[in-house]
C-alpha cells in the first residue's frame, strides 16, 4: 500500500514536469495559474491549521510582487533572485506585523489581516515616485523572456516547494503543536507549547510563500499596479479552492486548485464578467453543506461504505 502511494506521487511528479512537452502554450498557461493558486491556497491552509483564519493572502502576495519587480527595476537584480527577495520582504513585514496582531485571536486577527491588502494598496498608490502610484510600474522584459515552459517550471517548483513545506508541517513535531493549538489553545498552552512563537513562525513562513508566489507572478507579467497586484482574486480564489478540496490537509487544496483552476478558465470564457460571483456562491454553499470539502466527503463516504461492508 505504501509503495503504491510513492509510485502515484512519482507519476504525478513526472507528469507535472513533462507537461510542457505534450501540451500547447494555452493549457500550459492554465496550469501555471493552477500552480500559482495552489501555492497560495496551501499557504492559507497552513495558517488555518494553526487555528487562525488569515485574510492577508492577497496582501503578502502583492507585497512580494512589488518587491520583486522594484528590486529588478531599480537595483537590476536578477528576476529569479528578486522573487526570493520578495519572499524575504513579505516574511519580514509578516514578522513585524505578526508581532503585534498575533496577540489577537479569532475574529480580531481575521479582520485585521483583511485590512492588510487595503493598507498595502493605499501605500503603493501614494508612494508615487517609488512605486509608480496608481499606474504601477512596468519592466522592459518579463522573466525568461516570456518563455511559457520555463515560467511553468518555475511556478511548478514553487508549488512543489509549498507542498513539501506543508507536508513537513504535517509530519514533524510542529504538527502536534499546531493541531493542539487549533483544538484547544489553553490546553496547548498548559502543555508547554509557546503558542505565540509557533503562530509567529507559521505566519512568517506562509507569508514568505505568498511573497514568493507574488514575486513570480509579477515577474511573469513584468507589471505591478495597486489594484491588480493586491486584487482580492488572490484571496478569494485560494480560499474557494481550499474549501472545495477540503481544508486542514495538503491534498485538499491540491485537488481544489486543480478542479477550480481548470473550471475557472471555462467559466471565464462562458461568463466574462460574473465568474467571481460563482466563487462567492461556492464558498457559501460549501461552508453550509460540505464544510470538509470533497476530500472530507469522500472520506466519510468511504468510511460509511467500509463500515457497511463489515456489518453486511
Amino acid at each position: 500500500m505504501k509503495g503504491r502511494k510513492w509510485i502515484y506521487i512519482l507519476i504525478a511528479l513526472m507528469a507535472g514536469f513533462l507537461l510542457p512537452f505534450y501540451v500547447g502554450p494555452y493549457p500550459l498557461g492554465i496550469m501555471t495559474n493552477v500552480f500559482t493558486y495552489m501555492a497560495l491556497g496551501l499557504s492559507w491552509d497552513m495558517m488555518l491549521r494553526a487555528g487562525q483564519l488569515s485574510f492577508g493572502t492577497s496582501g503578502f502576495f502583492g507585497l512580494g510582487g512589488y518587491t520583486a519587480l522594484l528590486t529588478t527595476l531599480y537595483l537590476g537584480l536578477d528576476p529569479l533572485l528578486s522573487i526570493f527577495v520578495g519572499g524575504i520582504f513579505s516574511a519580514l513585514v509578516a514578522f513585524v506585523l505578526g508581532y503585534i496582531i498575533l496577540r489577537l485571536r479569532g475574529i480580531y486577527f481575521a479582520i485585521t489581516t483583511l485590512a492588510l491588502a487595503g493598507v498595502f494598496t493605499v501605500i503603493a498608490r501614494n508612494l508615487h515616485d517609488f512605486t509608480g502610484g496608481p499606474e504601477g510600474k512596468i519592466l522592459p522584459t518579463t522573466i525568461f523572456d516570456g518563455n511559457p515552459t520555463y515560467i511553468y517550471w518555475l511556478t511548478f517548483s514553487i508549488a512543489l516547494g509549498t507542498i513539501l513545506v506543508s507536508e513537513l508541517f504535517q509530519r514533524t513535531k510542529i504538527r502536534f503543536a499546531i493541531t493542539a493549538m487549533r483544538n484547544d489553545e489553553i490546553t496547548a498552552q498548559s502543555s508547554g507549547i509557546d503558542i505565540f512563537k509557533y503562530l509567529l513562525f507559521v505566519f512568517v513562513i506562509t507569508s514568505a510563500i505568498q511573497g514568493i508566489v507574488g514575486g513570480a507572478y509579477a515577474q511573469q507579467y513584468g507589471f505591478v499596479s495597486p489594484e491588480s497586484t493586491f486584487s482580492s482574486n488572490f484571496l478569494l480564489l485560494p480560499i474557494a479552492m481550499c474549501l472545495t478540496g477540503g481544508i486542514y490537509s495538503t491534498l485538499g487544496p491540491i485537488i481544489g486548485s486543480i478542479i477550480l483552476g481548470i473550471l475557472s478558465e471555462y467559466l471565464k470564457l462562458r461568463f466574462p464578467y460574473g465568474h467571481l460571483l460563482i466563487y462567492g456562491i461556492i464558498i457559501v454553499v460549501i461552508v453550509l453543506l460540505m464544510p470538509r470539502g470533497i476530500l472530507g466527503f469522500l472520506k466519510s463516504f468511504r468510511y460509511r461504505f467500509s463500515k457497511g461492508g463489515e456489518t453486511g
Partner: protein
Amino acid sequence: MKDDPRKKITLMVTLIILIILFVLKPYAIIYGVQRGSLYALVAIPLALTLGIVGILNLAHGDFLTLGAYLSYWFFTSLGLDPTVSIVLIVPLMFAIGAGLYKLTISRVLKAPLLNQLLLTFGLAMIIEESINLIFTSRPRNIFVNYASSSVRIGKLQFGVYEFTYTLAAVGVLLFLLYFLKKTKLGKAAFAVGQNPRGARIIGINVEMIYLLIFSMSVGMVGIASALILPRMSIFPLVGAPFTLKSFCLAAMAGLGNLKGILWSGLILGIGEAVIQSIEGYSGWADIVFFGVLIVVIITRSYRGSYS
C-alpha cells in the same frame, strides 16, 4: 467610573486637541464630525450583531451598498426621494436580513468561528459581484437640490446635509439604548447577548432574538444607505471599507459599548479629515483606521483586556 481621574485627563486632553484643531483647521473638524457620524451610524448595527448574536458579519458594509442601490433604484424608477424612501428601505432590508439569517447564518451559529467568517465573507462577495453584474461598476449618483444646501457662519461655509448622519446616528443610538434597557424584548436580547444558555433556561426564545437582532441591524444599515445616496457616488465596492472601519470602531469602543462607538467614530472621522486636509498627503487618509486599530490592539494588549 465617573470619578476616574484618568478618564477626566483623557477628556481634557481630547478637548484641548479639538479646540486647537478647530482654530487651525476648522473645516477638518466639521467634515470630520460629519464623516465620523456616518461611520458610527454604520458601525452601531455591526456592534449590535457582534455583541448579541456573536457573529462578525463581514458582509456588513456590502449591505450598505445593497441598500444604497435599492434606494437608487427607487429614485430612478419610482422617482422616490432617498430620504423618503427610508421608510421602504428599512423594512425591505429587514426582510433581506431575516431571509439571509434563516437561509445561511442560523446554520453556522454553532459551527466553528472559521465557518462563520468564511460564510459572511462569501456573502460579501456574492453581494458585491451581483451588484457589479446588474449595475456594472460605473459610479452612480443622483441629484436632489437640498443635498447641496450650505450654511455660512462667519467666514466658514459648509454643507449641512451631512449633519443628517449625525442626527441619524444619535437617533439610532438613543433608540437602541431605550430598546435594550426599557423594553421587554430588548431586555431579553440584552440577556441573550450576555449569556445565551442562561437566557434559554429562563425561557427566552434565543433563536427568535438572534433573528430579530440580525434583521434589525441590517435594517438599520438601510438608514445609512438611503442617507448617503444624495451626497456620494455609489459603486459596487462603496460599502466594503465600512466593514473594516465599523469593526475598528467596535474594537475601539470595546464590546457592548454602543455609546463609545459614537465617540470612536468622531475620533476616526476627524483624524481622517485632518490627514485629508494636509496637502499632498490626502491619499493617506484611508489607512488612518488601520493605524488606530493597531494602536488600540497594542494598548489593550498591554492592559491585558484581550488575551
